């Protein structure tokens, strides 16, 4: 399963970004083997419609679930349309790695 986490940086040790559409990066992790790729969020500096644009990128990467702080109304509609599962409420004090570990324990 591929999970995307909104992130401030490009590694698993980076802090989580509480913003989704305007997050600087997304870390996409394969939960089976913990391999990951980081992508620069091209929507970060967009004037409007950042949420749906971010979802489009993740959808193209075949992401199944998203972990983030909060979703705006447009991003929420987009996540639903792209049939991606979303978990919100992540705090920026956590690292990407911690967020995944927690998600794995909870979803077991």
């Amino acid at each position, binding site marked *: 399963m591929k999970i995307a986490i909104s992130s401030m940086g490009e590694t698993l040790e980076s802090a989580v970004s*509480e913003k989704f559409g305007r997050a600087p990066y997304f870390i996409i992790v394969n939960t089976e083997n913990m391999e990951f790729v980081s992508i620069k969020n091209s929507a970060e500096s967009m*004037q*409007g419609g950042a949420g749906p644009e971010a979802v489009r990128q993740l959808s193209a990467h075949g992401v199944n679930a998203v972990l983030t702080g909060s979703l705006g*109304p447009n991003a929420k509609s987009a996540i639903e349309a792209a049939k991606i599962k979303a978990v919100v409420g992540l705090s920026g004090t956590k690292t990407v790695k911690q967020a995944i570990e927690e998600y794995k324990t909870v979803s077991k």
Partner: protein
Amino acid sequence: MKHIVVISGKGGTGKTTITASFCALAEKPVIVDCDVDAADMHLLLHPQIQESNYFSGGKYAVIDQSKCIACGKCREVCRFDAISEDFKSDIFSCEGCELCWRVCPVKAIEMRERISGRWFVSSTKYGPIVHAELGIGEENSGKLVSKIKQMAVDIASKTKANLIIADGPPGTGCPLMASLSGANLAVIVTEPTLSAMHDMKRVAEVASQFNIPSAVIINKWDLNEVNTLEIERLCGELKIAILGRISFNQDASRAVTEGIPLVEYNNDQMKKEICSIWEKTLKFI
């Protein structure tokens, strides 16, 4: 973090003067002036600008007359009457859809960035304020409102502030909806005039579409006591709470002239009325 927005539907009912008083009474609020069309909060709160940014709200088409072959394709596709018969674009009507630019066979059209305003982060003696200045004759005020609200939320979460107080715009359109989104309470300032009552109903309906609870303040209530009672009855019917009444008082416009919030003007009755309204407001959020 809680978020109060003060609205009215009809203009001139006393939104800004009441919002400014709330800011003076609240404990360390983050303040936003969402009436970017006619921002007035600064006249009462006297912000010191710390940071100033340009806001770009989309694009507009410009036609290069030396390249234009007057084929008329752009006029055909434009739904905004933004291109004249002699192929000049009208910046006021252009909405920036880029369709003319796409269809032009000789690439005579350029889409230019529209600088439609500026926004500021400032300090006041009551707390930080995010405010904006829409460029003269510019559109996209809804987007600008969303932008400064986002800034206010960022500041509030950084400084661990518990409360955001927003002065909303009049009307029920784009800027109002942008102001309402994400609020926990819409405080509607109305007055006992048929116009204001009519507009109160419309704006309360918009708030309920957003699932935001509303509460009403009746300003200048003694101007027409029959109407005041009617407002209270109507609110009961619509299940909207009443926060209180404020009497008609010439000192209100004197406070504005002096550039201070009503609660800081030397008028005990006015102070008492607003303080009791504020206490009640806090109980709602």
